[in-house]
């Protein structure tokens, strides 16, 4: 896949494009961009698009028994919208989406809020230990979700939890980390722990690119650090906040590793606790790949819709704000 056999560099500009001053060479070669993006496009088609189309196709199939009793064999047949009907009529699936909603309402705002807080703190000129804290808060990003959940599991279980150890010593008893409703907080905490650092860095770097002159004039006007944070910094980092928000949201909708790893530790987490866990169960445990494919399709479309709504809301609010 060598590109050194260079693409034709002399090409006429595409119709309608803006002409540059130099006529003998085009500034918009015709093949180069295609060749540059070819490896990515090919890999994308092979390893994402084709499997996605295949998944959608599987979602209209079903394994049904042909023959009877133990002599029968399950074969692959067309099932129409059966699998989709099941997704929407499955009360457990709907309950799973509701649990996901509760979890998301805790995890996403807290992840972003803490990330923003830490980013703003790192940007406070007077704060100390910045380099250390920046690294320390980012470290969890390097820890695999499964290992993170295993570690927090130990922190939550009454007999091994150092937190419950302290509260018991103080006479408050054990903290019910793994009982509903605390469970939602415990799960969200794992995601927050893993996600704050990454989002903090994104917001922080965005803060750093705010022109210094803005601060200077604000300080001359007597603004405090807190006022500056709310009046200058947060509005100017909006795009970074929207980006991290959308990615946190997508991450929350794909909740899987944390409840799965905590599941063996508590009866409160069922195998269908989150939608992706149901999908995993169908695909990997109860051998119902078509059902998993249908739920996946619904989940992916739902994620797309939610992301689109969030982006649309934030951009329309920006426009409205610009007009006023």
């Amino acid at each position, binding site marked *: 896949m060598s590109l050194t056999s260079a693409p034709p560099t002399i090409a006429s500009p595409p119709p309608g494009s803006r002409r540059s001053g130099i006529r003998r060479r085009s500034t918009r070669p015709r093949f180069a961009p295609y060749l540059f993006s070819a490896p990515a496009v*090919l890999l994308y*088609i*092979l390893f994402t698009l*084709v499997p996605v*189309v*295949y998944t959608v*196709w599987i979602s209209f199939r*079903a*394994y*049904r*028994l*042909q023959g*009877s*009793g*133990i*002599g*029968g*064999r*399950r074969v692959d047949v067309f099932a129409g919208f059966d699998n989709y009907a099941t997704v929407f009529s499955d009360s*457990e699936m709907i309950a799973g989406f509701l649990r996901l909603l509760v979890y998301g309402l805790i995890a996403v705002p807290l992840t972003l809020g803490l990330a923003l807080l830490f980013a703003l703190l790192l940007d406070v000129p007077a704060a100390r230990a910045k380099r250390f804290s920046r690294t320390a808060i980012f470290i969890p990003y390097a820890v695999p979700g499964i290992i993170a959940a295993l570690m927090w*599991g*130990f922190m939550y*279980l*009454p*007999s*091994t939890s150092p937190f419950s150890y302290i509260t018991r010593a103080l006479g408050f008893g054990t903290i019910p980390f793994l009982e*509903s409703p605390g469970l939602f907080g415990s799960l969200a905490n794992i995601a927050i722990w893993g996600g704050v650092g990454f989002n903090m860095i994104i917001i922080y770097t965005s803060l750093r690119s705010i022109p210094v002159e803005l601060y200077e004039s604000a300080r001359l006007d007597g603004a405090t650090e807190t006022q500056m944070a709310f009046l200058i910094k947060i509005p100017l980092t909006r795009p970074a906040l929207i980006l991290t928000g959308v990615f946190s949201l997508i991450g929350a909708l794909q909740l899987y590793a944390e409840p799965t790893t905590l599941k*063996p*530790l*508590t*009866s*409160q987490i*069922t*195998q*269908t606790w989150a939608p992706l866990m149901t999908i995993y*169960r169908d*695909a*990997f*445990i*109860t*051998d119902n790949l078509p059902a998993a494919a249908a739920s996946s399709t619904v989940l992916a479309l739902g994620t797309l819709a939610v992301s689109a709504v969030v982006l649309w809301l934030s951009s329309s609010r920006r426009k409205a704000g610009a007009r006023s």
Partner: protein
Amino acid sequence: MRFRTLGTLGVSVILGTALLSGCSSSGGDTGKVTLEFWSWAPNTQKVVDAWNKANPDITVKYTDAGGGDDSSSKLLTASRAGNAPDLALVEYTTLPAMIVADVPADITSYTSDIKDAFTEGTWAQTTFDGAVYGIPQDVGPMSITYRQDIFQKFGIAVPKTWDDFKTAAEAVRTADPQAVIASIPPAEFGTFAGIAAQAGSKWWDVKDGKWTVGIADEKSLEVADYFQGLADAGLISTDPLLTPEYDKALNDGTMLSWPSALWAPGVLQSVTPDTAGSWAMAPLPQWTAGDTAVSYQGGSAVIVTKNSKHAEAAADFAKWYNASEEGVKMVLGTQNLYPAATAGQDLAKEQAPPALMPQQTDFYTQAAEISSNTTPVTWGPNVNLAKSVLTDALSKAITDKTPWRDAFIATQKAVIDDMTKNGFTVTNK
């Protein structure tokens, strides 16, 4: 189907056809054969090495496929794609699901000579409508492993019946309010199934191609009521097993027994090695005094897959492994499993007791005794679904304080619905 072919074509063009030959397990018809074998049992490599040394023409290549619920899907998927290994270890509970998915080959014709190496109950675990789909490797006759020292200290007799068990549980609570006799959590599907089977319930049954599901039959519901009674009275815990929490209780001496199967001492040894010598094993309590019947919990068989091009060679290996004296010796001694073959169970009597209970010198004699009283169990094609639904429903019942029997009834319904939808004929809808 068309785009699939297109995608395939694309992939092959890009990757080059040179790679295409890489992946089959055959060695041609020259007489030399390589067999792929997926398992997860400990020290399987050593058994395979012994075979390979003695059989240069049939080389077995072992892969640790991991155990548990997830690994059976790996085998199913590989089989659908035509890549299944020649041989695989399969738990008895998932074997029917494998059969209806067309994974294992019918090896009846290769196995007529070893049928007598197993008890009828054991052999029934791999035989369906007269066809043999696997060779039993290990079995888990049910037993109770308990803290002998603490039972003695509290003056509690080893429970012989489930009524005794309740009395013992009360005595434990009185003697030490921190301690419980056992934990029976919702996830222990195998325990519930085994104890219900012991009571006479048949969770699945197949006759003339028609299935009967009995997860919510009268006997099962009585079992549900019994354990709910214990849990409601605070006599047993319903917290999950083998969590750090549970393991700590084992170490502290506040978790006093584990009603499960003969493999329990090995598991306990690994999480609570310091308490070795304080434990003992006894037959599982009975529903009626004087009965001896117990069921199985756990255990697995080696299957030959339909994908295998060398079914006979594969069956030879499986037979050597699980039915020859040399093989079962290794199952017992090297792998520390309780062999399915009766010859292995006899050999075990000579064996030193498990490290957890060195003082119980008659461990394996008792084990053989228990094993000879096992009742055969038929598993169904959707055991994993049943397990998932029952676990979730029981958890919910415990949280919401609703009757446990409702969880069994809901599971029965889900299992029947699923089977009917998939095209099985179920007689008791």
